[in-house]
């Protein structure tokens, strides 16, 4: 459900009109609009935003680990529309037990490396990704460094 105070923002209203089930929440803070999207709908919502709402640039994809809370991972997408001179943040939550989400590489090719980075550092898997390999850490590395239960110093446990 889209919170009532966000209905005045054209993008938020458009996404709700496109797929009301996909929006699970949102907020407007520090002049930045955030929409929370159901993880299973992320790819279709992104496609709508790119082709219908002119968010032709994907600025970055990253994740936040909320360990030990569940759902553990928050996937964060920052979109940029040059025509509208607007930015938009999308968030999708996925569980820590089986962190899988659909890739958005089909919408923006630039998602390729960003999703590889999230896979490498958080251990989130992306379905339909063309080349899901580690990108920053060595191929034979064990563990995912940016997870909150990964130690910052000392030997790996």
């Amino acid at each position, binding site marked *: 459900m889209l919170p009532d105070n966000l209905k005045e923002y054209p993008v938020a209203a458009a996404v709700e009109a496109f797929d009301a089930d996909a929006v699970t929440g949102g907020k407007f803070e*520090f002049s930045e609009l955030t929409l929370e999207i159901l993880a299973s709908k992320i790819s279709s919502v992104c496609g709508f935003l790119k082709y219908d709402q002119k968010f*032709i640039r994907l600025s970055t994809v990253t994740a936040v680990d909320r360990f030990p809370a569940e759902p553990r991972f928050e996937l964060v997408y920052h979109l940029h529309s040059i025509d509208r001179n607007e930015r938009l943040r999308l968030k999708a939550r996925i569980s820590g037990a089986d962190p899988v989400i659909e890739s958005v590489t089909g919408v*923006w090719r630039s998602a390729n490396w960003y999703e590889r980075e999230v896979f490498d550092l958080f251990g989130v898997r992306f379905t339909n990704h063309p080349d899901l390999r580690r990108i920053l850490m060595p191929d034979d590395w064990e563990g995912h460094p940016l997870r909150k239960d990964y130690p910052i110093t000392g030997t790996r446990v």
Partner: protein
Amino acid sequence: MSDLGVPELLAETEEQQAATGGRRMVLNMGPQHPSTHGVLRLLLELDGENIASCVPDIGFLHTGIEKEFEVKNYQQAVTLTDRVDYLAPLSNNLGYCLAVEKLLQLEIPPQAQWMRVLLAELTRLNSHLVWLGTHALDIGAMSVFLYCFREREEILKIFEMFSGQRMMTSYFRIGGLALEPPRGWQDRVKRFLAIFPSRIDEYENLLTNNRIWLGRTKGVGFISLEDMLDLGITGPMLRGAGLKIDTRKDAPYSSYEKFDFEVPTQTANDVFARYQVRIEEMRQSTRIITQALEGMPAGPWKADAPHVVLPDREKMKTQMEALIYHFKIVTEGFRVPQGEVFQVIESPRGELGYYIVSEGTTKPYRVHMRTPSFGNLQAVPRMVEGTLIADVIAAIGSMDFVLGDTDR
């Protein structure tokens, strides 16, 4: 093949081998190749001198800075941002400080804002000079490198005068500047501004009509604007393709809206166009620095926020309250209200974004850097596939990436 670390997608199947007569070979360019300015590794599959496919391999300079942020308090973490893009440390300081200040909703006094603009533009000059020198050196113009580093030295001396450091300045702090601007800084900057415009003409004399330079850069490194936007390229590369995009104009920060400058564009979309864009950007930066120098407002250089900004030495020694604040900030740090922000600035290389998540403690919960080099490098295969191997150096040089910025 696989024991060389060559990914499966590059390995030639037997059918392909039969089709090409086994002519294809894999060349490992980097990570110690001098022209990749750092530790970029490119796996090139060659068909004669033509590049059939290219796979970039990054991560050799991964330092885990994003993880490090989570155990530093907010003010300490400023020093990490210098080390991300070591050719534009002040741009990174600025992006990070603006993001945290947005969370704190701090009002920054005009003098600090203008000083930030002045130094950020000097950083742009510094970065573009290193780019021009090394890019020309790669293509074979040795003397440009020496000319550029002569002026860069002057800029580094200005940085040293302000902060005591030549490269890892950490001069912008949350709430303003680290130190009071030094006595006599105006003369130093004025002296630099007096010579610099004629020095840009000097570089242009060496290159712009040079037949070898034109031959090596015109029509090289083309990539369509649609591909650029889809692959995440930002900054001077986009402006070289005719798109007038600049965060300083589109979403002004740190009072950039008060400065009069142009956003240069070119339409040819090749290495030469990017060279022209950056040269013109240097002239525009000079304009901004001149305006900042002439119109520098008086007043405080750090925000009036005792719980965030360290008190003056004098006050700390004479006033009890100031001493308490000093002790609290130094030992524990300051708390930042819960929330998340994404602050974007225009770094010399393109769109630099800091995404900070705060949980209301003295340390960031998560910091993600959207660095321009990472986004740009992703487009290398699209840009070089199908071209000649000799053009790879010119093409990747025109991207102006820094590997510290890529791998973080």
